[in-house]
């Protein structure tokens, strides 16, 4: 019902076409960069390993994604830092 009302009001986002476009966009980023969700997960694990040598990070909210605009694919990582490791800084 809510969907129906928002459609009546002409809200674009409620349409299934936009759902299709967004899903396609995401799936094509992976297809075109030929990187599988499995590979992305491995990459995430390796990133955590390396970064943990230097700082304490919040693994539960860590985000690693491929993003694409026009013709470029970028690897975007959002890694919340909890603590720097003092011992490493002092070396």
């Amino acid at each position: 019902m809510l969907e129906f009302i928002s459609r009546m009001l002409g809200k674009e986002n409620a349409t299934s076409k936009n759902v299709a476009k967004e899903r396609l966009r995401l799936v094509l980023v992976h297809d075109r960069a030929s990187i599988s969700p499995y590979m992305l997960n491995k990459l995430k694990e390796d990133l955590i390993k390396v970064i943990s040598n230097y700082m304490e990070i919040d693994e539960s909210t860590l985000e690693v994604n491929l993003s694409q605009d026009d013709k470029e694919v970028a690897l975007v990582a959002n890694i919340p830092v909890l603590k720097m490791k003092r011992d490493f800084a002092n070396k």
Partner: protein
Amino acid sequence: MGEVIVVTSGKGGVGKTTTSANLGTGLAALGQKVVLVDTDIGLRNLDVVMGLENRIVYDLIDVTSGNCKLKQSLIKDKRFANLYLLPAAQTKDKSAIDPEQMLKLCQELKKEFDYTIIDCPAGIEQGFRNAIAGADCAIVVTTPEVSAVRDADRIIGLLEAAELYNPKLIINRIKPVMVKRGDMMDISDILDILAIDLLGVVPDDESIVISTNKGEPAVMNKASKAGEAYRRMTDRIRGEEVPLMNLDIPDSFFEKFKKLIGMR
């Protein structure tokens, strides 16, 4: 020297065979000498769409394996004397022919015909590689669905890897009512995503089912909307500038009212 055009899509069931039959028949109706080649070995269908299934004697594999001469295998169309079909073999599989043999065959056909139209099987394996081996250019068929557009994107990448650049897109089975409602991706959405040139748009049309039932391509039916779309495409292939068909649906009273008061 003629041109070899491969009609491909990746995904099955989006209308490659129907497209091949209609473009071939349409070009023949414009006076061009055309041959349609069915490369879907084991699952041939172009013969039934063309209504020529009862006339098959030899097939593609008979030609490449030397069982018959190329001329013997070509089936003349019922309607146009300048239109021929080279059917696929039904009892073999895709490995019965290789890309090199296909390339040689296409080079032979090119000498004789203005347009050689190759109906490609679904998939990206050997059947696809055979079909594109001798092609000069490609037409990619898709429908406004996530799965079909995704596969089209993959095929465009594979065509480029095979040095078949600038493929042309056909968007098949568009339903203007659903597009208007926002429940189907429209032409610009798909072109945005795939970023290739558009050859044409075919509206979803019951007359395609009827024409396939009868074995008479819709392009010959003046009353068919899909047929009109194919006629425009054949004109474009011949180098004419033809506008897209108008698929817009006029606004209802309520929609006009919404626009008037600025709700849209």
